[in-house]
């Protein structure tokens, strides 16, 4: 037999490819099981962090403002109200407007970005442009909520803008929240009430 027979070469190639197939198969299995385990092991930690650092303080901020506005509104409408009749209607209108604007604010309008999520998403885009099945998937429940909200936006847009007007209502921002808080404070003090200090 000829030593340079191409047959020998093929055997070697076959062995090599067999070998790399085995190794990559095992690595893949390990990788899949690892990713699930790693994810499940850290969901709770992420949840606690998001709850305490972002969700609860942000929710409380908005909730308090809404509570203040609701109390002022109910005070202005109640018989206990001692405000001068001449300015009463203006104040009531103001309170209604503030309350309505506060109620428009959604979590998704004011939630700060998650830098780690954004960075990781970029990494996915960089490394795995080819395999699209590994994107960060949004939790199903959250996704449904977002979908519902955009549906609301569409409906709201239809009502408000009518025919042809392309002026879409902008979503509120954190700056709007700050501005609303200032308006609310001014309104409260103009009625002669203390604006509660919160911690």
């Amino acid at each position: 037999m000829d030593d340079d027979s191409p047959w020998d070469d093929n055997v070697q190639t076959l062995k090599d490819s067999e070998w790399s197939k085995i190794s990559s198969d095992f690595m893949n299995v390990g990788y899949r099981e690892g990713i699930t385990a790693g994810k499940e092991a850290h969901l709770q930690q992420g949840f606690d962090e998001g709850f305490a650092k972002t969700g609860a303080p942000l929710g409380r901020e908005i909730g308090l403002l809404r509570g203040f506005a609701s109390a002022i509104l109910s005070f202005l409408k109640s018989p206990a109200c001692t405000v001068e009749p001449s300015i009463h209607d203006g104040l009531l209108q103001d309170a209604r407007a503030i309350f309505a604007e506060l109620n428009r604010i959604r979590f998704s309008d004011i939630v700060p970005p998650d830098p780690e999520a954004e960075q990781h998403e970029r990494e996915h885009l960089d490394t795995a442009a080819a395999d699209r099945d590994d994107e960060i998937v949004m939790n199903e429940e959250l996704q449904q909520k977002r979908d519902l909200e955009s549906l609301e936006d569409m409906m709201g847009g239809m009502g408000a803008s009518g025919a042809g007007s392309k002026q879409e209502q902008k979503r509120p921002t954190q700056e709007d929240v700050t501005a609303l808080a200032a308006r609310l404070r001014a309104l409260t003090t103009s009625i002669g009430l203390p604006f509660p200090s919160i911690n």
Partner: protein
Amino acid sequence: MDFDLESLVHVEQSFYDEGYKDGFDHGRIHGLIEGRALGREKGFEMWEELGFYEGFALLWKGIQEAQGVKDDRTAHNIRHLLELTAQFPRANPSATDASELDIPRLFRQIRSRYKALCAMLGVKPTLRASGSSPAQEATEDPGKTPVASEEGNGLWKIDDTRVSVPPKDYSF
């Protein structure tokens, strides 16, 4: 070629381990990100409602004081409501201590306190300030709020840990 079966098994295991380790590190990032998104949302949802009751009570407290009202029942109700909201944790205690707080019960107490206060003030209660939430009817539904874990090691356990992870092809 001489095959040592023993060492082959070892090699397979070490390939698996290598893949597992990389996968675990990657999964960790996804777990943190997804958990954080859920926690932010839940924390906001709960504290938006609680803050509403708290803010309502705080401002009415100011009104009563400014008007010099001597209404002990209302004042008592306000104080009690504020005590209850102050008890509500702002962090998920699962991480820190196994406290005995019954969250759904506390939530129910706070809601009924708020309703009672509204009745005393002659005000129509606004349940859930947010007009955009589908959980509008959450008022009477203690099961809706994150389930208190029965294992006792966390108040809000994430209920969907069975999230499927899309398979990733590992390439060299």
